[in-house]
């Protein structure tokens, strides 16, 4: 006989999620004998800890950019998908329009007199997201004309007591007076291989090398010719093809608050080494989780 009993109205079940977290950071090793001089101990400990923090921040920035460049959508693809004029076209035709949009994006910050406005207009056409933040590569001359500085505030979450959340600002943001976008600059990491007095910029997180082929022509009779941009002189070979390796950087346009990346910094514990009682080790840990966008539930959003 079937059992007659009231159905369970509430069921609780734990959800188990398995994630891979990457550890960054090294242990801080201190000589406990230095505790006889508390001030010196504190100075040395803080010196080591601050170095670790800076190194971790640099790594976090690198990971963030890497996640964005690997997972986020590119404008020229999104603009083809968003335009109803292309909806009924076949894949080849859509690819041609995507190529045309790619060509328009190429060097847009230097090709157009209002590069930031052009980018904003294209992004509005490609997505309904209320974009308000733009990250551009260092060297974009246009934003030096923006008079209004804006403070972008970063919130370091993961602290249990919300009152103790850490915020820090950035003074490198400007507001584009035409579009209202907050425009920030992504500066490439530096290396001090040539000494601290001569820091050198490394390849930026937003940079990559693109190859273009152009056909150059020369008319010896009239003097008409193409231009050799490498040597800054007229082309010398008629009907010749030249491959340019050009280092280019991309920009990122987003909604403020999207793209949470990191948690659990620092997860710290200090203990003495049982076999070496004169040493104490502070384990500084930083772990990361994949990029997620707050605007939607997808891992990546356009």
């Amino acid at each position: 006989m079937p059992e007659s009993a009231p159905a369970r109205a509430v069921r609780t079940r734990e959800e188990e999620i398995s994630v891979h977290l990457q550890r960054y950071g090294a242990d801080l090793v201190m000589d406990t004998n230095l505790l006889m001089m508390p001030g010196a101990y504190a100075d040395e400990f803080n010196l080591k800890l601050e170095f670790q923090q800076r190194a971790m921040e640099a790594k976090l920035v690198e990971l963030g950019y890497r996640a964005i460049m690997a997972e986020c959508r590119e404008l020229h693809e999104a603009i083809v998908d968003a335009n109803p004029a292309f909806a009924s076209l076949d894949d080849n035709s859509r690819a041609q329009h995507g190529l045309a949009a790619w060509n328009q994006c190429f060097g847009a910050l230097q090709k157009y007199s209002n590069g930031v406005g052009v980018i904003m207009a294209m992004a509005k056409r490609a997505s309904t997201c209320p974009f308000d933040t733009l990250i551009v590569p260092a060297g974009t001359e246009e934003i030096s004309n923006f008079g209004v500085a804006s403070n972008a505030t970063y919130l370091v979450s993961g602290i249990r007591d919300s009152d103790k959340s850490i915020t820090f600002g950035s003074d490198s943001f400007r507001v584009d007076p035409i579009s209202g976008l907050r425009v920030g600059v992504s500066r490439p990491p530096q290396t001090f291989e040539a000494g601290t007095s001569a820091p050198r910029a490394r390849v930026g997180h937003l940079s990559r090398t693109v190859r273009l082929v152009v056909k150059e022509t020369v008319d010896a009779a009239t003097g008409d010719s193409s231009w050799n941009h490498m040597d800054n002189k007229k082309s010398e070979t008629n009907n010749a093809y030249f491959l340019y390796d050009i280092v280019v950087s991309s920009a990122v346009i987003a909604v403020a608050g999207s793209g949470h990346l990191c948690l659990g910094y620092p997860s710290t514990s200090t203990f003495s080494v049982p076999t070496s009682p004169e040493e104490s080790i502070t384990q500084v840990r930083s772990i990361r989780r994949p990029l997620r966008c707050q605007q939607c539930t997808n891992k990546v959003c356009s």
Partner: protein
Amino acid sequence: MLIIPNCFIEGISARTQVYPLKAANGRPENPYAEDADPVSGTQAYFAGADATGAAGAAKYGQMYTYDAARFDAAGKMLSPNNGPLGNLDRPVGGLGSITAGIVVRKMD
């Protein structure tokens, strides 16, 4: 979140002469241009030069090619570059100036 691809040019790192793969170069495997020069705006396969300066064995793969801008003896533009370089294909304030670190005066 969107990436605006390649919207800022840092500079040229190399310029290499390449040859379309066609029978005249001893490389007939180009399915796009066959034995003719690739037309501007189309794809073609390219090879690097050998020691003699002719088409060599190194393949650069399938790439789009565009006609470079053309200028008269006085530097006046006769025909533009319709590829991604656009108005940056010019003697002054163009790709070479950007590579040299000069701020470019933009032209729409």
